[in-house]
């Protein structure tokens, strides 16, 4: 198959910001757990005579925070909420409220962004049962739109990963349903195809890969690729033409006469720093990207990283926070905010500093860290444990004991399976109750093994 030239890919990312209320009424925005049609009122069910409240400020502020981090230009003129008219069973008024861009321009992963605006989600229509659940009707959405300048599915993945990272860092996303994505892809010589309503990053990648193959196959055979809208089947991992064709319909966009335009430039937005700058400097100073991303996804972990790094070095600190600290948190199902609490950070930083400088063994460090998580004050214990290691004579004695009681393991080492030494180190550590550095134990064992 001749590889078809350039792809042009664009993304429309519909983000569910974390809010208490819906976009234009005071109903709870919980649509995942509540019983069907319980979080509703005259406004979000479109009752005749109901009027929308002003746009949900938590959603607007979240959009402004994103816009600022992404260096977008925030609208200087008041932003109007618009009505987009179309008939659908899940849309109570048969118009959806969306808005003019609150910001335009900017970049993500080096790709140009087009705009970001707020809108409301329609309800959920169960076509098989013919039932509509309006709990989701009016739930706030922020739509971030890229220019069609992405070149391949991995670009899309990178943009979506960074979007998620940004949302997590700013603490403005619902973890259980961060976003849904519409993507468009066109190949040279073909028309633009849109794939709607994909719920995961991997789904977007798979849909784009599928479309790339489908469209290049058509073009290779000299067949046209027509402009159309398709949907993605997450189970079959394929895209299909929409059952109800969305014709090039006229939405008759119109300013909502019931909603006063918002002067977004005058809204105060907290400055929480820029996760991408932090990520970059962490990686530049030697942290592994995987660890750095895990840390930047949470501002309490970033705080912990900065404290630990100031008493050690970036590589150690990123590893310590991303693995040891996060491991303990995940194991206990604790939120990262725990580490930032009441003097805990001071103890954790002290353990990390002693560990990274070799004044504390791996085993002692881990056990002290656990004690902190169990709620104990370890400052005294840290002072007595720190720098207290077995002397060379005891190391040699323990090494001799372990070798003589494991002759078969020693034999395998001598025959060349050098990795078994780790097993012997473990046994020595146990006998020494952790009061030794692993590298000193290795030296003692090697001397005995010859």
């Amino acid at each position, binding site marked *: 198959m001749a590889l078809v030239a350039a792809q042009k890919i664009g993304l429309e990312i519909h983000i569910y910001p974390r809010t208490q209320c819906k976009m234009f009424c005071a109903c709870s925005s919980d649509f995942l757990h509540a019983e069907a049609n319980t979080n509703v009122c005259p406004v979000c069910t479109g009752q005749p*005579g109901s009027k929308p409240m002003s746009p949900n400020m938590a959603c607007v502020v979240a959009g402004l925070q994103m816009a600022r981090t992404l260096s977008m230009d925030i609208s200087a003129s008041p932003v109007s909420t618009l009505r987009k008219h179309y008939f659908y069973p899940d849309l109570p008024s*048969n118009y959806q409220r969306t808005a003019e861009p609150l910001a335009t321009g900017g970049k993500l992963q080096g790709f140009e962004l087009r705009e970001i605006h707020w809108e409301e989600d329609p309800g959920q229509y169960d076509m098989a049962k013919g039932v509509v659940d309006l709990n989701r009707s009016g739930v706030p959405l922020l739509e971030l739109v890229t220019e069609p300048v992405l070149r391949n599915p991995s670009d899309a993945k990178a943009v979506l990963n960074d979007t998620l990272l940004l949302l997590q860092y700013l603490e403005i996303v619902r973890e259980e349903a961060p976003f849904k994505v519409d993507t468009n892809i066109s190949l040279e010589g073909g028309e633009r195809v849109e794939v709607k309503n994909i719920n995961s990053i991997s789904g977007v990648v798979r849909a784009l890969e599928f479309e790339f193959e489908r469209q290049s196959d058509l073009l290779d055979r000299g067949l046209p690729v027509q402009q159309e809208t398709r949907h993605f089947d997450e189970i079959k991992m394929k895209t299909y033409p929409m059952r109800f064709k969305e014709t090039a319909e006229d939405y008759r966009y119109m300013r909502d006469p019931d909603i006063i335009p918002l002067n977004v430039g005058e809204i105060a937005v907290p400055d929480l720093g820029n996760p991408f700058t932090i990520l970059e400097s962490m990686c530049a100073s030697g942290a592994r990207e995987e660890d750095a991303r895990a840390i930047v996804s949470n501002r309490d972990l970033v705080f912990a990283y900065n404290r630990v790094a100031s008493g050690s070095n970036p590589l150690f600190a990123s590893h310590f926070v991303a693995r040891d600290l996060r491991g303990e948190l995940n194991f206990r199902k604790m939120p990262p905010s725990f580490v930032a609490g009441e003097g805990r950070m001071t103890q954790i930083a002290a353990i990390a500093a002693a560990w990274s400088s070799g004044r504390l063994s791996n085993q002692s460090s881990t056990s002290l860290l656990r004690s902190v998580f169990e709620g104990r004050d370890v400052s005294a214990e840290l002072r007595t444990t720190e720098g207290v290691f077995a002397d060379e004579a005891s190391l040699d004695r323990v090494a001799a004991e372990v070798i003589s009681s494991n002759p078969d393991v020693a034999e395998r080492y001598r025959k060349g399976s050098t990795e078994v030494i780790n097993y012997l180190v473990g046994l020595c550590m146990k006998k020494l109750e952790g009061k030794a550095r692993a590298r000193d134990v290795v030296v003692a064992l090697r001397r005995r093994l010859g």
Partner: protein
Amino acid sequence: MAGDREGIRRRFEERLLLSRKSSGNSFITLASTPGGTASGQLSGKLAGIKDNIAVKGMRMTCGSRILENYMAPYDATVVERLTHSGAVVLGKNNMDEFACGSSGENSAFGATGNPLLPGTVSGGSSSGSAASVGEGLVDFSIGSDTGGSIRCPAAYCGVIGLKPTYGRVSRYGLADLSMSLEGPAPVAAWGGEELLASVMDCISGFDRRDQSTASARKTECVRQLDSFDPSGLNIAVPENALLHCTPQVVAAFEHALSFMGDAGATVERVQLKSLDVALSAYYLIMYSEFASAMQRYDGLKFGTRGEGYTVEESILNARSLLGPEVRRRIMIGTYVTSAETRGAWYERALAARDHVSSELNDMLKSHDLLAMPTMPSAPYRLGERINDPLLMYASDILTVPANLAGVPAGSMPMGPGLGFQLVAPRNGDESILAAFRYFNRRGWHW
């Protein structure tokens, strides 16, 4: 207090009986009980509510077959405030279907009769609101005014009606016709200025459920009711407005005007140049907003269900339940807001509106009040104009400017079926009622 409650109940029952017997057809639905009678400023006052305003648990038809079975699940803000002040809802008033009409003949539940001049139209679209007040069935009624919908029937039925400043009375619970132009509007009998003032003070002010009230002050109509003094006032009269009126209307208007002139007011004849475009701007904006508002009545969601399998079929069948005037307005509104024609019509209408609004507001900066007839002619015979929509639309020419500018305007009787209209600057609702009170107190009659 128990005696009071008993008195209220008896009066309610008595008026209910009269309303049932009346041939005026000014109600679509009558209440079954007086409800919880709170005591307050409006204690025991019987109210009619236009059938496009939600009263919890009562059906709200908007004068249409398509909502024949729609039960309002909530109270409009005005209804909530009135009942908290002790008012008692007697029933839901008849109206032109979805407020489309100026004659009271466009209701799916039959035309509303004119109690003052039987055989003529009652005016619309708040036909039943004015007629039930005129017939003495209720003490006051709440209608709505989009382009004259309260002032027109008030004029034809010989009562007083006030279209408040836009944004001073919450629209929450008022079914949409044209959201940027309309609002609830009270009506009471001639002599009922004090009651109307109490009603305004009760229903006005900020409501978090309607953003247009964001900066609204509560009215002080009762406090300012006797403060009107014509001497030294400067009243503008747009002469070109009178060119649209019949000689009978002009004569009655000049007579009423001289009553104020004699009392010391300065009357200045002016030209309201933008009057020529006001009507077209009004109808284009109203059609556009109306088409958007009517989008929800697809036969699947509210009230009567259209037969049919697909969404499209249901919509078509449901739409056939709407009257011809409503369908005409939806079609034109859809057309003028479509992508291809937006620039030609809707955008130009919005520009024309700004033009009318600034001319009128400027005029009200240099003058205390503006006076015009309410309607250009006396009420015509039932059926006379129903098939001539353009003639019908033309009769709104003197009422729509106040809606386009968002300023308050009121109508009081100046002759049989003729209304004298006063327009005040924004938030000048108080001075209109005070002026009407002045006429009444000084023995004005036609």
